């Protein structure tokens, strides 16, 4: 298990390969990478993530430990950035390693659903017209609720 909260960029492929080295006895690795999205019909110039790092470590640490136990994972890693990112840049990467694919897929979705609502980051989009805080989405609350 590992969690990293960092301002620096990370390399999604290098992270996946480093994890694969630890995947002894595994049959399945799922890597989810979340990117700064700039929709063609509503482009953004940048996304700034504000963070409460100490709380993030506590919340995500507990979450990863829950996933590890609930889905009998071999390994699990969460990397989450903060600071100002450009469109296309990776924000978050969640990776899960399990004997079989079902557990790896489920655990990665579990982690992402909880990160959306329970990880203390706040997103602000900068556009040509100014900047705006991203609202919490009811759909994310619903996605999270399916695990309880």
């Amino acid at each position, binding site marked *: 298990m590992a969690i990293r909260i960092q301002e620096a960029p990370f390399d999604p492929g290098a992270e996946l390969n480093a994890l694969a080295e630890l995947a002894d006895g595994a049959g399945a690795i799922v890597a989810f990478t979340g990117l700064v999205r700039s929709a063609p019909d509503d482009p953004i110039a940048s996304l700034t993530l504000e963070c409460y790092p100490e709380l993030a470590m506590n919340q995500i640490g507990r979450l990863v430990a829950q996933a590890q136990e609930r889905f009998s994972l071999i390994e699990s890693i969460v990397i989450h950035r903060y600071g100002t990112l450009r469109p296309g840049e990776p924000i978050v990467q969640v990776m899960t390693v399990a004997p079989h694919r079902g557990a790896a897929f489920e655990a990665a979705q579990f982690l992402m659903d909880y990160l959306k609502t329970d990880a203390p980051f*706040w997103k602000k989009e900068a556009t040509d017209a100014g900047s705006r805080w991203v609202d919490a989405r009811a759909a994310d609350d619903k996605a999270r609720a399916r695990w309880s």
Partner: protein
Amino acid sequence: MLAPMKILYFAWLRERLNRGEEEVQPPAEVVTIGDLIAWLRANDEAAELAMQRPEIIRAAIDARIVAHDAPIAGAGTVALFPPMTGG
């Protein structure tokens, strides 16, 4: 009086208050997070406006998430913030 405690604000709450942290020393009748929010609102116009809907404000005590009925006695740092948008 309670012991002085640090309050952290994040995201639009920080912006509307124009400060990321402050030190406060609430009176003894301020028992819970909910009481603290009400007391902050009563004593500051910016806070009154920024937390017009106190029910959407989330809170942590010493970097642990808590509900509004959590007691603040003994808290070193209280954080108040909008709903999180991680991931």
